[in-house]
């Protein structure tokens, strides 16, 4: 039997679609871990990025923290936390939060910092002050990049949430690790297909969200930046903010 038949057989088996170990509840668990981690990470990363970017301070600190976190292996961090804090929701949650912070922090920081100086001066000229410049001028202009950071973080989190199953939690990783344990490849690959589909759905969600919340004026102007930096700002390689 070829792999495709095995996997389609697994997807067609009604037993895999119901109960606490069924596909819908596993997807719900996976989304629950990912959403919780994303929310907490966003609450930490975005305010810091906004304020530091507005003040244009702390470039070295932000980039160094972001880069050193990137070099940290998620599996290592997760297993370390499990040994220190025991099995439970906390270790995978912390590991996912740590993973999600760098892209959101860097993109928010760089997005705000690279808002055209003329735009900021114009805002100051019509009487806006610090916080309102940040809130009503800089943030909307930087929104495409901030959302891009959130999208990159979300995809990494969805992908890494799979590993939560390695330390006994639920989510789609259960299929992968249980399948590997039992040498049941239809289940392993079925689980992987679901994680990949969930990641692609997340990507599409962010594209739709971007189209809905980014101001029309900004969309037109920033289309080029948005596509040029599709994979996030590359530290060390400064791009021109506008074409």
């Amino acid at each position, binding site marked *: 039997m070829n792999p495709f038949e095995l996997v389609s057989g697994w997807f067609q088996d009604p037993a895999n679609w119901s109960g606490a170990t069924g596909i819908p509840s596993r997807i719900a668990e996976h989304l629950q871990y990912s959403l919780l981690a994303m929310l907490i990470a966003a609450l930490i990363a975005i305010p810091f990025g906004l304020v530091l970017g507005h003040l244009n301070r702390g470039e070295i600190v932000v980039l160094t923290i972001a880069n050193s976190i990137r070099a940290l292996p998620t599996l290592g961090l997760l297993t370390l936390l499990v040994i220190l804090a025991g099995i439970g929701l906390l270790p995978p949650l912390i590991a996912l939060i740590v993973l999600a912070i760098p892209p959101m922090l860097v993109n928010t920081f760089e997005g705000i910092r690279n808002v055209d100086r003329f735009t900021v001066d114009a805002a100051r000229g019509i009487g806006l002050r610090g916080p309102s410049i940040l809130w009503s001028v800089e943030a909307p202009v930087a929104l495409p990049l901030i959302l891009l950071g959130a999208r990159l973080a979300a995809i990494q989190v969805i992908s890494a949430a799979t590993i939560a199953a390695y330390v006994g939690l639920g989510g789609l990783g259960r299929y992968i690790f249980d399948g590997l344990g039992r040498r049941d490849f239809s289940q392993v690959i079925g689980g992987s297909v679901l994680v990949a589909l969930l990641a692609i759905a997340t990507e599409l969600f962010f594209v739709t969200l971007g189209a809905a919340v980014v101001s029309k004026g900004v969309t037109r102007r920033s289309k080029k930046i948005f596509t040029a930096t*599709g994979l996030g700002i590359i530290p060390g390689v400064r791009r021109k903010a506008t074409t």
Partner: protein
Amino acid sequence: MFDMNWVMRNADDILGLLRDHLTLSFIPILLGLMLAIPIGVACVRWAWIYPIALAMSTAFFAIPSIALFVFMLPYTGLSQLTAIIPLTLYTVSLLVRNVVDGIRSTDDSVRQAAAAMGYGGIHRLVSVELPIAAPVILGGLRIATVANIGMVAVVSVMGLSSLGDLFVDGTQRFFLTPILVGIVLTTALAVVADLVLVAVQRRLTPWSQAGRNR
């Protein structure tokens, strides 16, 4: 907490894991770079390819690494190819964008000057456009390298050998030392690789340093 004796006793095994980890992260970087340059050049020459390549690389990036490793299992089994093929594809999809951006960043006046001096086709590409693109390409290469070194650790949960074995071992025996050793070595590997690439970049593009001595 930290058992130094364990490290000493297992030093040989740990070095073996380090070597496997190096192999699994660097072969994909080299292969990826070798593939990304011609693809990027093609994207610049025939502009219609670029949106297709971009869409493919974005979709590809959304697929989790563990899922890709698992997809490979029925075909490549527990050989190193199971890790090398997906990581090569990741590297390519990350680098193509940088190759294209880098080549496009060549100033038109520079390109015309090169043409006037008799540089054309491949010759101009190799001796003018690619050197100018080098910092951007190397910037992407740095990200790909750090990302690969982190992703490789995951292959250990499937039974392939890498520094990730230390995490698996530590979890199974509830033993902190191997995990700490694994984290320190993986992170150190990433940092050293990054520094090497920075040095390579300085060497390849001496002119980027020239203006800095104010």
